[in-house]
């Protein structure tokens, strides 16, 4: 059978720096072909060439038997030929409704007036096509992430796509939503549409993919059938070296308590929360979306008021009524949305990394030279990849951004780190580095980490002890060595209706 898409010898350089060095990639009809690779490996660039955003320097692309003439290949041309991308950060307009977003493209064809009846009719047709029940009048910004995702797909399909490029589609989805998405993908496959699937979630790619291709440093390293793939081997191929693990060469967990939480109550919790955290421990907290994990972090970090309950740090009773107080006590917090809550995007690496350090300083003036030295040292030891410490953080990759947030807390001598979904949207290599940083962190005396993640496989991997939350309450305490994903899931589903 003829291939749907065939890319050969794709080469691209930016200002003398080679990004793609002759990549081969192809796609069959009705296939999900997974594309793996670290950030910087060239996946984005390859897809941007395919979707008409970039020009290639050398190579050829043939779609459905017809070669693509890159002299005239614009994003619109790509659209017309059926190459459509569904983005990680959606290209929806939040203030408009579902129907308006669906009709956005056709608005440009009209005579100036909008025929609302047609708009809604069009919307309903498209939504029915993918069996997606949603109110066409709903405003996009009010939709949960998973529905925004589905809308993006609906829009892509309404353009009669032949090739669908999906970039990190399940990054923000819960397990159930992921299942629904996979069902939709199966439908799409059945229609003969080819899907290029980019993701960092390795267990997932085996489930959904037909073939897997690994890119590294601008070259295709391997292409294998998904069912034959060995994940460890693939990881090795992706990063070209051993993956760091949290539990390697670790000092054992102490018996002493660093933090004791007693009967915490506020409007987010269904029942009082109590637990202890030991020194040198990585305490995992898991549960489904909405189970109260982030709210627990906020309660400890002073973001939310407590109605009742006590916190003791190293045996001493403390009242944490603001993030400032928490910081002064040596607690650090890496928020779930690092761009919105953890970073000053248009400031440089230096300004971001030194922020908590400066916040804790007592004097009015500070030494600029000292700041530069400290930050440079940290950047080095953590391995933050940026074009100098003056570079604006917004240009960094997800993994490096997270390292900057990490560095911010490391520069400020904190003892207790609360990490909220720290590896979301981060490629496998950077993920390993973050684990390495955690390991380094808890090696110190009097240190501990609370690791919040809805990725149960990751929690089993990383934590010394697991607390499961469901419906705003703590429902179980488990030993990772003696439990399974299924058991964790069972506890998570025990939703306590408030």
């Amino acid at each position, binding site marked *: 059978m003829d291939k749907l898409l065939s890319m050969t010898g794709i080469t691209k350089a930016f200002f003398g720096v080679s990004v793609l060095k002759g990549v081969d990639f192809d796609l069959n009809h009705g296939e999900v072909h997974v594309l793996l690779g670290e950030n910087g490996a060239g996946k984005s660039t390859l897809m941007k060439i395919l979707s008409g955003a970039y020009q290639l320097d050398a190579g050829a692309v043939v779609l459905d038997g017809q070669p693509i003439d890159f002299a005239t290949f614009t994003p619109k041309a790509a659209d017309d030929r059926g190459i459509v991308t569904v983005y990680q950060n959606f290209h929806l307009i939040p203030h408009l409704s579902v129907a308006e977003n669906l009709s956005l493209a056709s608005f440009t064809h009209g005579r100036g007036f909008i025929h609302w009846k047609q708009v809604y009719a069009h919307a309903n047709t498209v939504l029915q096509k993918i069996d997606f029940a949603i109110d066409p009048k709903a405003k996009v910004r009010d939709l949960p992430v998973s529905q925004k995702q589905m809308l993006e797909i609906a829009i892509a399909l309404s353009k009669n796509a032949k090739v669908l490029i999906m970039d990190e589609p399940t990054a923000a989805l819960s397990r159930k939503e992921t299942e629904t998405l996979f069902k939709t993908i199966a439908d799409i496959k059945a229609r003969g549409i080819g899907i290029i699937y980019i993701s960092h979630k390795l267990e997932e790619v085996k489930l959904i993919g037909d073939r897997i291709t690994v890119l590294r440093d601008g070259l295709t390293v391997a292409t294998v059938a998904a069912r034959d793939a060995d994940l460890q081997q693939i990881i090795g191929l992706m990063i070209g070296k051993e993956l760091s693990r949290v539990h390697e060469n670790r000092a054992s967990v102490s018996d002493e308590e660093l933090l004791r939480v007693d009967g915490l109550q506020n409007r987010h919790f269904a029942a009082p929360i109590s637990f202890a955290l030991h020194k040198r421990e990585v305490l995992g907290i898991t549960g489904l979306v909405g189970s109260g994990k982030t709210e627990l972090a906020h309660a400890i970090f002073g973001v939310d008021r407590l109605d009742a309950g006590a916190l003791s740090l190293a045996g001493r009773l403390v009242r944490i009524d603001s993030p400032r107080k928490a910081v002064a006590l040596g607690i650090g917090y890496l928020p779930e949305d690092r761009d919105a809550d953890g970073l*000053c995007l248009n400031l440089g690496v230096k300004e971001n990394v030194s922020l908590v350090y400066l*916040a804790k300083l007592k004097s009015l003036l500070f030494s600029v030279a000292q700041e530069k030295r400290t930050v440079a040292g940290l950047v080095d030891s953590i391995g933050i990849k940026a074009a100098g410490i003056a570079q604006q953080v917004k240009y960094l990759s997800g993994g490096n951004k997270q390292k900057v947030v990490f560095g911010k807390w490391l520069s400020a001598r904190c003892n207790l780190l609360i990490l909220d979904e720290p590896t979301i949207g981060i490629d496998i290599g950077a993920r390993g580095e973050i684990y390495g940083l955690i390991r380094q962190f808890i090696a110190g005396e009097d240190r501990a980490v609370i690791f919040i993640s809805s990725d149960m496989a990751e929690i089993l991997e990383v934590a010394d002890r697991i607390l499961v939350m469901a419906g705003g309450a703590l429902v179980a305490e488990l030993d990772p060595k003696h439990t399974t994903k299924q058991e964790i899931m069972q506890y998570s589903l025990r939703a306590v209706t408030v």
Partner: protein
Amino acid sequence: MNQVETSQPSTATRASAGIRGLFRNQGVSMLVILALMWVVLAFLSKYFFTVDNLFEITLQTAVVAIIAAGQTLVIISGGIDLSVGSVFACAAVVGGVVFTSTGNLLLSLLTTLGVGALFGLTNGLLITKVRVPPFIATLGMMGIARGLALIISSGIPIYGLDDSYKFIGQGKFFDVIPVPTVIVLVVYAIGYVVMNYTRFGRFVYSIGSNAEAARLSGINVPLVIIGIYTISGLLSGLASTIEAGRLATIQPAGGNGYELLAIGAVLIGGASTFGGEGSILATLIGALLVTTIRNGLNILGVNAFWQYVVNGVVIIGAVAIDQYRRRR
């Protein structure tokens, strides 16, 4: 190795990066534009490029520049202060009443600064504790302060300011450097140190860039914001003493429209209305730019109505060039 996942090219050749690096500094590029303007005007009129006139430009800029220094902090933090013009007048009026009743210059100046700071403090509290958006809070304060200025003075200018007061506006050090120019330099020197070498200055940038991230990093955001607006009010008061010295009277209707001039200077200097970006020195250049245009056109005898047009064209042009510089 640089593995930055971005469509930006990594720095190309090292040589041109050096000069380009210099130009990336918005203060420097605006300075170049200002210098160009001076050169052009020097050619057009022999009266322009004299020591006397150049000092005159700094003198005429002084009042707005000092207010703009405070406004720079406000705008970098992501806020705005519309009340500066009215606080300017009210602080001066209260200080003036103290002066005419006690004859004590020092007391009068301290009162002016204090009243300005008090208005600023109130703004800060309204914004942080009552959560009134800065635009609205300072807009309301603009009316309140103006009204109070007119009420206290009954609308009559306060005159009879003696030589000691006039020195602030009309005195000269070494017979050549105007006192206001020196005051501006001192204010900006302090401003530069604060913004670049103190934690407070760094917090201003951080809050403007992402207030939530700043809060979650342990910064006392409300305190910093209150400080920012208090400084803005204080500097408005300071500026008003200079104008009072220059006019030898205190005009309760004075300062009208100064908030727009100050904000203009800050934005022409390259600050972003979204916050997190800006440079205190660039604001000074922005203020000088605006005054240079007006001074030059006056000296050239350009028709008053055309002055409006030319003013607008030059300001847009200067910022357009700056934008072009940024995109490279």
